[in-house]
């Protein structure tokens, strides 16, 4: 009898862990392929485009002034208006599709706003999302919960928080002391209200493209490019790499440590660092900038060109000085901030 009991206990121990699996095999609650959106393509302005699509689909069914359910699970409502003027400290708690302009005073609170006309929002506003088909401006001290996107120029005043993303199909101007995660513009300009810094005419686009993906054609062992000199080839080093002031590197840099680009220097390829990257005053990087740690752009530093927008990625942080400029995408997984550099 005791022998059979042991066999039984053994059998239970063997079978018991399999029971949930057997039930899953029978009921098949989770047997599909891992879902992949095969139509997915990376787009820095995806969020703005996505909201426009959703709101438009809803708005097509409604007349101006009608309030309708937007997202049932959140009990949110949307309203189509011909335009909106909101006084100082006003609140608008519906998702808004404005067929015309949106003008809001200081200290307003808004939810999701999609305006087909221009948008002007005063200082110290709080809003969740903003999509504009025309120019948009947001005053200083804004608290953006999610993102803002404009089809034309987007201007954000100083001392605010841009949430997850701020993007523009054209120019994105961000004031000083603004925190962010992702910025996209052609270009992204920090601080200045008008006039992107002019770019020196170095290198035809074909040359830049070839360098940006070229690989180790001519690996240069020197870790430093001396001041004022020109070096043709990639620099790959385990430690810190310095490109001296007014030097030109016709290649990319890969560093196991930090990379410093001196004042007025030009790099035709990419910068990839396991540490941090500092691009000093007036330096121009025509390729991408990727750093696991921090990326800092000093005043007058430029990444990318009008014709060839690129990406600046700082894993831990991104610091953009007033006067710096990036044509393309700025990304950080950590903390992004704009700042006023010491004179």
């Amino acid at each position, binding site marked *: 009898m005791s022998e059979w009991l042991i066999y039984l206990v053994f059998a239970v121990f063997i079978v018991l*862990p*399999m029971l*949930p*699996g057997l*039930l*899953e*095999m029978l009921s*098949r*609650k*989770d*047997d*599909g*392929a*891992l879902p*992949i*959106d*095969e*139509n*997915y*393509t*990376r787009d*820095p302005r995806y969020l703005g485009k996505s909201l426009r699509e959703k709101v438009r689909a809803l708005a097509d069914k409604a007349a101006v002034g009608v309030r309708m359910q937007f997202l049932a699970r959140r009990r949110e409502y949307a309203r189509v208006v011909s335009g909106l003027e909101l006084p100082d400290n006003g609140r608008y708690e519906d998702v808004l599709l404005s067929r015309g302009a949106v003008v809001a005073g200081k200290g307003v609170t808004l939810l999701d706003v999609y305006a087909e006309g221009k948008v002007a929002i005063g200082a110290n506003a709080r809003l969740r999302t903003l999509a504009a088909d025309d120019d948009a401006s947001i005053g200083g001290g804004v608290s953006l919960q999610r993102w803002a996107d404009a089809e034309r120029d987007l201007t954000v005043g100083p001392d605010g928080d841009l949430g997850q993303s701020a993007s523009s199909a054209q120019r994105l101007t961000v004031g000083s002391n603004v925190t962010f995660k992702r910025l*996209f513009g052609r270009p992204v300009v920090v601080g200045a209200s008008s006039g992107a810094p002019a770019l020196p005419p170095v290198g035809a*686009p074909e040359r*830049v*493209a070839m360098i*940006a*993906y*070229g*690989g*180790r054609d001519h690996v240069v062992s020197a870790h430093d490019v001396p001041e004022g000199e020109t070096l043709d080839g*990639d620099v*790959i080093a385990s430690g810190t790499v310095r490109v001296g002031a007014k030097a030109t590197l016709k*290649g*990319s*840099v*890969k560093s196991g440590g930090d990379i410093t680009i001196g004042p007025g220097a030009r790099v035709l*390829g*990419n910068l*990839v660092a*396991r540490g941090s990257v500092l691009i000093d005053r007036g330096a121009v990087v025509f*390729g*991408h900038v*990727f750093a*696991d740690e921090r990326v800092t752009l000093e005043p007058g530093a430029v990444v990318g060109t009008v014709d*060839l*927008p*690129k*990406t600046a*990625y700082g*894993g831990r942080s991104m610091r953009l000085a007033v006067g710096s400029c990036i044509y*393309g*995408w700025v*990304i950080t*997984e950590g903390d992004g901030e704009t700042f006023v550099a010491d004179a």
Partner: protein
Amino acid sequence: MVVTILQIWLAFVIAVMVVYTIRHWIFTFSRVYSRQRVSFADAYDEDLPMLSVLVPMHNEQAVAAQCLDAILASDYPAEKLEILPIDDHSEDETAVILARYAARNPRVKPVRVDQKERGKSNALNVGLAHAQAQIVLVFDADYTPGRGVLRALAKGFIDPEVGAVMGRVVPRNTSRNMLTRLLSMERAGGYQVDQQARYNFDLLPQYGGTVGGFRRRLLDEIGGFDPRSLAEDTELTVSIFRRGWKVVYDNRAECYEEVPETWPARFGQLRRWSRGHNAVASSNLLGVLTTKGLSFAQRLDGALLLLCYAVPPLLLSGWLAALLLFLMGHMPFAGGIALAFAVVLYNAFGNFAPVYQIATAEVLDGSTKRLYLLPFLFYMFPFNSWAITTGWVDSIGDFVKSRRPGWEKTKRSDMGATKA
């Protein structure tokens, strides 16, 4: 004397298993708790390089069209893309399908393998001879890359030190049966956790040869793929690291594949992988351990990667040693406690170390109900061990007899037998 040898051997086996266990733990913890290193796929770039996409095909009439359709639907700039499907001695309608696509689209440039030799390595060499671009991507014929995958993979070469890039493989036919469901779990553990963790630590993420690419210059340097190789991907991975290049792993460049749906097909696939992988290991292990410029961790990871298909035969030998010691009346080491410890090591950590990775991967993927199937992997383990051991024996036979292994293609689900 015999007892002592068996005890030493058993201790060695346990030590090896402990090393692999610790490796799996570290990888899993890295994936869960540490900051994940991103690939370059996030980069915004309108100035992408010219790409040649190679798709080796042998009797692929069931899947050729869907693969080409997927590549043609890519968002990669059309003027910078050429697609070279390589017809490797197909006896079905593959050539007709390729001709039809070529007639409709100038970007599709079919290549035919004319020489007697066949197999993926040789087909890739033939394709490379026709490829125009410096960056070459490779997909197996049963793969359907999404619209953004080519762009994501190409951007891996932003880093001038990168020689190859690898994306994530996701089984499409998961729901077919128990085997496909278990294989989808294995794949998840291997990519979502293992590959990503190796990339996090700057170790040796593997170029897998199916959703990835490499610089053409690298292949020129090493004289192309060895036509005799059954594991051209492992061979290229090792060559990359021994020459000071890197592999980028992009966990978000996901691509559907078809996994074997029958146990014999899976056995054959594992056996071939093991045979090829062990051949690469035998000729490169010493080289990896002595390559200058690699850190200690990179050398160790390289060695453990190369030896991973030698572990099952090693483990089986350990079990045999333990059994013999038991029958001979000699408890290993200090008696019953040590034996119990060894058993726990085998079963809880040795056998199941990858299970931690798989469970973590499924949680990260949000496939929580699938976790209930985890205990079934216990039964998968002896099957895998036997198939891999068979391949290991094959590789020893190849080495001893200087034999050239034949290529045996994994059977597609919608086709008849396609053995070459």
